[in-house]
């Protein structure tokens, strides 16, 4: 199979996955017990008012019709109207998405170089005290749920020493410095989690590489260690490292949900959890689609980069 065809295949598969997921979400949320119209009216619900609200919101059409309409509108940038406060979903999402991206990008900027550095050092000085220390700490870190790390930071840095705010209230009027200060704890939490995962994967990839025959060959030829690493190991390490980075950015997308709830950070994850509770279908659909699309795209990117970097992947057995 040609390279282009493989990549196109991978791309189409991602797209189909995304469509399947949106259909699943529409069908699933349709099956929720209770109805939004009843819930919204509460005590004042009479059969007539319920019917009127259902008519007004288009809730009385069949699921598949609503799904098709929603998808068509979504592709044109119209994500529908929030059921709970009648504002356009796109408008509600815009600021939240910005905040979430800010959190994710800030964490990635700190975490990626740090994790690569630690991972490479641990791999090069394998079995040393430093490597054992880094490995033990990161094993502990991946065993801890994100909310645990978040609350420990809150308990220490926000309650005991009162250095940072425990609740990250972000608004557009704040300057970049103020924003960073307000969201320092969520960034630290995410960084800690990502560094642990990424560092372990980097270390494993480099160790795997250092054990391959051509490195042994270079060592046996009597080359200097620095030359082996710079000239022989690093160019070959590029593909696994790119893969590690992209996969962890995808992981960041999910990690952000829990961290946002811990710090009540006004991002997309918090909005999604709140909307699930209030059963605001258009918002939930849009949030899930954004999270899903990001995750699927990043995974796809990791696969495609791996195919490009490693010719052996082009011929699966």
């Amino acid at each position, binding site marked *: 199979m040609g390279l282009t065809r493989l990549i196109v295949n991978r791309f189409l598969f991602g797209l189909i996955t995304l469509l399947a997921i949106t259909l699943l979400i529409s069908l699933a*949320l349709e099956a929720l017990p209770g109805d939004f119209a009843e819930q919204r009216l509460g005590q004042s619900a009479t059969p007539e008012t319920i019917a009127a609200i259902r008519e007004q919101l288009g809730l009385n059409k069949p699921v598949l019709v609503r799904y098709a309409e929603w998808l068509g509108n979504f592709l044109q940038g119209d994500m529908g109207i929030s059921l709970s406060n009648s504002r356009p979903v796109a408008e509600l999402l815009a600021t939240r998405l910005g905040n979430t991206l800010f959190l994710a990008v800030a964490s990635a900027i700190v975490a990626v170089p740090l994790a690569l550095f630690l991972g490479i050092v641990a791999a090069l000085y394998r079995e040393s005290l430093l490597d054992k220390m880094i490995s033990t700490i990161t094993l502990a870190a991946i065993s801890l*749920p994100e909310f645990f790390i978040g*609350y420990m930071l809150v308990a220490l840095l926000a309650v005991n020493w009162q250095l940072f705010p425990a609740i990250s209230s972000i608004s557009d009027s704040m300057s970049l410095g103020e924003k960073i200060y307000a969201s320092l704890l969520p960034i630290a939490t995410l960084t800690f989690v990502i560094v642990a995962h990424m560092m372990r994967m980097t270390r494993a990839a480099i160790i795997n590489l250092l054990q391959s025959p051509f490195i042994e060959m270079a060592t046996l030829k009597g080359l200097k260690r620095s030359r082996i690493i710079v000239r022989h190991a690093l160019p070959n390490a590029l593909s696994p490292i790119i893969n590690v980075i992209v996969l962890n950015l995808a992981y960041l997308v999910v990690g952000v949900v829990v961290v946002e709830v811990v710090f009540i950070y006004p991002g997309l994850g918090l909005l999604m959890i709140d909307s*699930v509770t209030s059963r605001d279908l258009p918002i939930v659909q849009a949030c899930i689609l954004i999270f899903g699309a990001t995750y699927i795209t990043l995974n796809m990117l990791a696969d495609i980069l791996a195919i490009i970097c490693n010719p052996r992947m082009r011929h699966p057995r």
Partner: protein
Amino acid sequence: MSEATLNTATEAKNPVSGLRRIIMMIGLMRESPAGMVGAFLVSFWVLVAIFAPLISPFEPNATLVPFMKPGAVNPDGGTFWLGTDHIGRDILSRIIWGSRTVLFYAPLATFCAYVLGIVMGLVAGYYRGWIDDVLSRIGDMILSFPVLVLYIIIISTVGASGLNIVIAIVFASGPGIMRIVRGLVLDLRNRDYVAAAQTRGESAWRIMLVEILPNARGPLIVDACLRMGYVIINIGVLGFLGLGLPPPDPDWGGMINETRQMALIFPHMTVIPCIAISTLILGFNLLADGMRDISLRD
């Protein structure tokens, strides 16, 4: 005590594992310090769960004195060693009873996910062809979606209950297990003993379950242990997001969710259940690490 531990780890694939094997495993485990720590942590929580009625100082759902700090004395007798929560329930007792919840649902969910994953993986790897394509594609699709978002869709659809959490976990982790089993089967199906069994005219299911599966057990036991850790994290996260087991029965994740608004004033209410969850997960991860060391040594 380690017997119970190992049982939870092995039950996923091998219900009739002999006692001799378990004793041998414990002996080997002694060589891996990380594995020993893990076995200790896991068996500690297993013992706590078994003896919950004996060691729990109060009723887990009884409302006594609210907002007590750790170590405070109950005016009606007894001490709140870990304090009480916002409606006056003793946190130590809830942690102790909560260990039963997590140690019931996590192994159950992992076990069910394994049954599904093993069957799908065996079928896909052994028959190959179109059935492999279909199963693998569906699996890839589920795997290429963020797990947490998947849980949220499922739980918010079918509602939060113990059974639904198990269903959600099986749905989300089955494909991962299938992928591992399939890979192992693809390697094992060309072995001579499989060809011999085929020549003897054994049925396909007998070959899959009796000839192939037992030889794939090593990596699967390690994976089951790691996966148990992930399942515990996920049950905790669901509880934390308010999508876990319904109140009032004690559940560690739920305890954090109920008290998180007060985390700034009464950190002990959230930090203690966090520590309980983390030590149990760490236990399973270290145990898996130890077992991997042992299996690599052979």
